[in-house]
């Protein structure tokens, strides 16, 4: 995956617009939206991850804009990002182990402060 994104960057897709994730019933999908500014062409890469202990390599070495998106993705979906230090970004006091944008997160659940 890292290799493919590196190749795309070499081809001119150097503008990373967004990283996001989707929680499907059987898998996680991580989505990268890249743009080629010279050719005005957009490329959307999606990576499938297993539902059990999802983890993905960090792309921060290739795209600096990945920093905050990866932090957000870790907090919201609990997808581990390897190869970098992930500090909490949006929900600094949230209890770890609960990931709000996962589908099994109970809707309307009471907020618990981290110990």
């Amino acid at each position, binding site marked *: 995956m890292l290799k493919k994104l590196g190749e795309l960057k070499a081809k001119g897709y*150097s*503008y*990373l*617009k*967004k990283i*996001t994730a*989707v*929680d499907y019933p059987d898998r996680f999908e991580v*989505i990268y*939206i890249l743009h080629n*500014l010279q050719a*005005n062409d957009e490329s*959307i890469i999606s990576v499938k991850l297993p539902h059990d202990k999802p983890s993905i390599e960090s792309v921060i070495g290739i*795209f*600096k*804009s990945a*920093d*905050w*998106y990866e932090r957000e993705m870790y907090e919201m979906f609990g997808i581990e990002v390897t190869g970098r230090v992930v500090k909490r*970004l*949006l*929900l*600094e006091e949230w209890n770890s182990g609960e990931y*709000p*944008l996962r589908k099994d*997160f109970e*809707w309307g659940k009471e907020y618990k402060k981290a110990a």
Partner: protein
Amino acid sequence: MSIMRINVGPIHPSTHGVLRLVVDVDGDTVKDVEPHIGFLHRGVEKLMENRMYMQSPSYTEKLDYVASFCWDDLYVSTVELAVGNEVKEAAQVARVVMLEFQRIASHLIWLGTQCNELGQMFTMFMWCMRERQEILKFMEDVSGTRMFYVNLRLGGFNKQLPSDFVDRAYKLTDYLESNFLKYPEVTESNPIFMERMKGAGILDRETAIEYGVSGPVLRGSGVEYDIRKKMPYYIYDKIKFDIPTGSKGDNFDRYRVRYREMLESIRIIRQALEMMPKNPDVMGLPIKLIGPSAKPDIVVNHRELPKGEGIIYMVPDKQKPYRISLRSPTFINLSVLPKIAQGAKFADLVVISGSLDLVMGEIDR
């Protein structure tokens, strides 16, 4: 000298909302800035995943609360893509007119507060608010409310346009233009303005692309990238307008890009009004909507919002979206602040963060 750590915010008038900055200073020089966000996090994406499609515009409007129509348009047009609904011709024209007026209103808020932060003039703030007030009055007559419109429906609007829509819009553009041309007398010929804006907060072209910033911040660094030109929607491909760009990427370039964009928006509105058909019919579908019948797997939609590029990545489902992911431009524009504020004076930090045009409602979501 030793490094001192200063906390700015989260409740601070110059941070435009609940932004907290932890700043390391050496004397008066900024060594490092760490933004802390999330104080206004409402979980909008989760909320929208649990609502029917046409209940969500009231959430998207409160993302960027000074340009709510633009987010509303981004969301409703994404649903239109999912459902496969065509927008009526007159409605396309009316939407472009409203979008550009909203863009001007958003830039006016920015210009007014930016001049306020420079600490030299309340004149500019009052002028900007005066012009913005006229725009809001116009928007109110079209939609019924001043700031949060919720008047878009699939294919058009929730009601017909007022009969004097075109005349009033023309008059408003004349009024705005004659006033905008006076602005440089107060800004660009003011030595305080020029000294604090020029050469501060420099963001060069390569760094801007690397950090993924968009909108006037990206264009200020000399990248000619505007969704209205690159991926045209509605009637933008039939309209002639320029993309203003800067060269150095400092605060002044970002000011200049926004100021010229306001004049370009007036050009766009005038051309759009000429395309308005006689007796326009802009009525959209009623709000009751079951959802897409032959649903696509994913829908990706782009819009040029006043603050940058907005993207919605949606996985549609029958009655509610299965997943909706919002790219808010200021979220990623803020992440570049530690880079460009390094080495600046502490007093300039507020000016530099202001020049990014941050709106916390959109950053925290």
